[in-house]
């Protein structure tokens, strides 16, 4: 600011401060949903030292604050990818065709709990859970059915699977292979982010060390054989859902990302061979501007670290490409139609934050898996943003806002503070073992709950604007109990029909490979090809790797 302009600014600011202070303000909580304070007004003083080229640059240019691609939504919209799965593979295949027919542009598989935890549907621990909160997958046979009539060379598929990610990837690749689609033609993502399982989502199988080895095996295999595959979707979503603040989501997710990069480098891989296939997954929570700043900060932090700390030379290694899902934990069972509105605001923040793909939650998700109507409205919400609101016309439209730039910087600084604390604890795995992340998240969750109960935070329809004797008036999806019986019979039939000698030989090879330092992916693919089940593969690996136990703390 020139000298004259500066004194005019200071005079104006003092006057405004006096006016502001002389007026009464409402007794309302003006902090963010993460309990971060926000000033009533932002001005040039909040972004002192701001340097356009250093702090923002241009879209597609380092440090990518304004977006990872030069064209952003002028080139193509984000992928509209609804996370979906229930019942049997046949049931879910029907839903996929429905979504694709309604304009969805990518697939995202939700698995049931037994699949996520590595149990076949006829295992005693699967009882009551088969096909309940996702689709039941036991073997290659189910994945063949799941993608029946869908061209795996054209569509990309994201699979929310972690501890057994290598196995589900193998089932997917083998499905393509049987139809003549080459591995290098198939694109998609496996979540494969075991660190956030220990931290927040809690669907682990093996202890951290062998889990990290499986992940580096997948990274090495895919960089050679499946180059279009995103090998890890480093996820803040679940950290946030478990109750973290925005800063914690940002910091813990990126810390996990650094840990994977370090593991890859330790395993002898060249950072530029695997880093371009790392992607991220963030939550879109309620606090509109805080969320937008979070996405912008994530891109800047990642780019700096990858270039300056890990020495990545390939600019693609510097990109924090991410998927976003609106916040399930923000939805209410009360007046569920209001969730359509919440989701729309959240989705808008993700788009203004430059997301690469998006899932919008359905209004009924606090009650059950989404009905067809609810999921259609959720998808339409994205189409409305893309085609009606005009927000896609210009890239990173909020850049230069004093508030947004100040928040972006603040989130970056607070994340850096967390990185230091994690380093002091000896890194991510040590911090997990010490319960650090779990306690931080648990504390934030409880603080938020108390703020709601004290009515400092208002949740519409829950602690204010309630309806007396509310009756839920939307149709809910029901899972037929027959599903479990059918799926149990189906997996038994797979075992009865296959070449069991061959299956046993492949499982024995897997056990040998697990005990050696060989890459596990080729032998897991061989197990998949001869219809070994997921549960059999996991049990074999458990014999070598053991199982993780978390001490129960609250």
């Amino acid at each position, binding site marked *: 600011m020139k000298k004259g302009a500066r004194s005019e600014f200071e005079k104006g600011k003092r006057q405004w401060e006096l006016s502001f202070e002389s007026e009464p303000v409402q007794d309302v909580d003006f902090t963010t949903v993460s309990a971060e304070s926000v000033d009533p007004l932002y001005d040039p003083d909040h972004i002192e030292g701001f340097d356009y080229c250093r702090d923002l640059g241009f879209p597609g240019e380092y440090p990518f604050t304004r977006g990872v691609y030069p064209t952003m939504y002028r080139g193509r919209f984000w992928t509209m990818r609804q996370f979906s799965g229930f019942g049997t593979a046949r049931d879910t295949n029907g839903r996929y065709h429905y979504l694709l027919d309604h304009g969805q542009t990518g697939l995202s598989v939700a698995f049931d709990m037994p699949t996520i935890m590595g149990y076949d549907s006829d295992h005693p621990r699967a009882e009551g*859970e088969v096909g309940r909160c996702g689709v039941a997958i036991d073997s290659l046979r189910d994945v063949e059915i799941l993608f029946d009539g869908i061209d795996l060379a054209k569509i990309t598929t994201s699979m929310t699977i972690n501890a057994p990610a290598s196995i589900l990837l193998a089932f997917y690749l083998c499905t393509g292979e049987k139809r003549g689609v080459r591995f290098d033609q198939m694109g998609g993502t496996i979540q494969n982010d075991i660190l956030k399982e220990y931290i927040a989502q809690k*669907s682990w199988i093996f202890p951290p060390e062998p889990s990290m080895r499986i992940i580096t095996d997948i990274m090495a295999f895919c960089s050679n054989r499946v180059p279009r595959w995103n090998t890890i979707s480093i996820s803040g979503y679940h950290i946030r859902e478990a109750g973290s603040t925005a800063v914690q989501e940002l910091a813990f997710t990126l810390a996990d990302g650094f840990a994977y990069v370090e593991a890859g480098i330790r395993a002898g891989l060249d950072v530029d061979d695997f880093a371009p296939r790392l992607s991220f997954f963030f939550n879109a929570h309620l606090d509109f501007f805080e969320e937008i700043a979070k996405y912008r900060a994530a891109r800047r932090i990642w780019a700096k670290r990858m270039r300056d700390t890990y020495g990545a030379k390939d600019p693609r290694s510097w990109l924090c490409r991410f998927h976003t899902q609106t916040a399930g934990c923000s939805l209410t069972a009360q007046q569920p139609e209001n969730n359509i509105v919440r989701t729309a605001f959240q989705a808008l923040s993700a788009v203004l934050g430059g997301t690469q793909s998006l899932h919008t939650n359905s209004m009924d998700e606090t009650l059950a898996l989404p009905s067809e109507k609810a999921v259609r409205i959720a998808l339409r919400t994205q189409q409305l943003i893309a085609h009606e609101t005009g927000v896609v016309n210009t890239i990173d439209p909020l850049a230069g806002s004093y508030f947004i730039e100040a928040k972006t910087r603040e989130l970056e600084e607070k994340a850096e503070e967390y990185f230091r604390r994690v380093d002091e604890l000896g890194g991510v795995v040590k911090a997990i073992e010490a319960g650090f992340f779990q306690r931080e998240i*648990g504390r934030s*969750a409880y603080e938020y709950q108390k703020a709601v109960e004290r009515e400092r935070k208002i*949740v519409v329809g829950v602690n204010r604007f309630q309806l007396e004797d509310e009756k839920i008036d939307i149709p809910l999806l029901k899972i037929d109990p027959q599903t479990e019986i059918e799926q149990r019979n189906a997996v038994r039939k797979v075992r009865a029909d296959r070449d069991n000698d061959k299956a046993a030989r492949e499982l024995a090879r897997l056990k040998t490979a697990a005990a050696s330092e060989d890459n596990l992916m080729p032998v897991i693919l061989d197990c998949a090809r001869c219809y070994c089940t997921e549960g059999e593969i996991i049990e074999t690996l458990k014999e070598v790797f053991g199982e993780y136990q978390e001490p129960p703390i609250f």
Partner: protein
Amino acid sequence: MARKIRVLIAKPGLDGHDRGAKVVANALKDAGMEVIYTGLHQTPEMIAESAVQEDVDVVGLSILSGAHMTMFPRIMELLREKGAGDIKIVGGGIIPEEDVGKLESMGVAKVFGPGTDTREIVDFIEKNFQHAA
């Protein structure tokens, strides 16, 4: 002085969503109850065993995976088999209204849905189970 109410907060089944369970555990503890948390991925057998061993008055089950119609009745049956049918069961999670009615008619004392104020849970337990202690 009356014995503190003892509560076991349990996560049956495979689902790992423990935010609600931990928030409720903290709220009950802050309200002066003795709270034991099982940790994750518990079988019905493990939960029934813990409930008996810890001599609790109430078991709070948190389940978000849709397996509630299997898990609740099984745990109650196991408690009865162990001669501990007097231990009260409450629960919460993603449970449709229709199933809430069914569970309560099977003898589950109360199912608390999403958005429940933790003070409501504290009050319910204090009012209904104080004399069980």
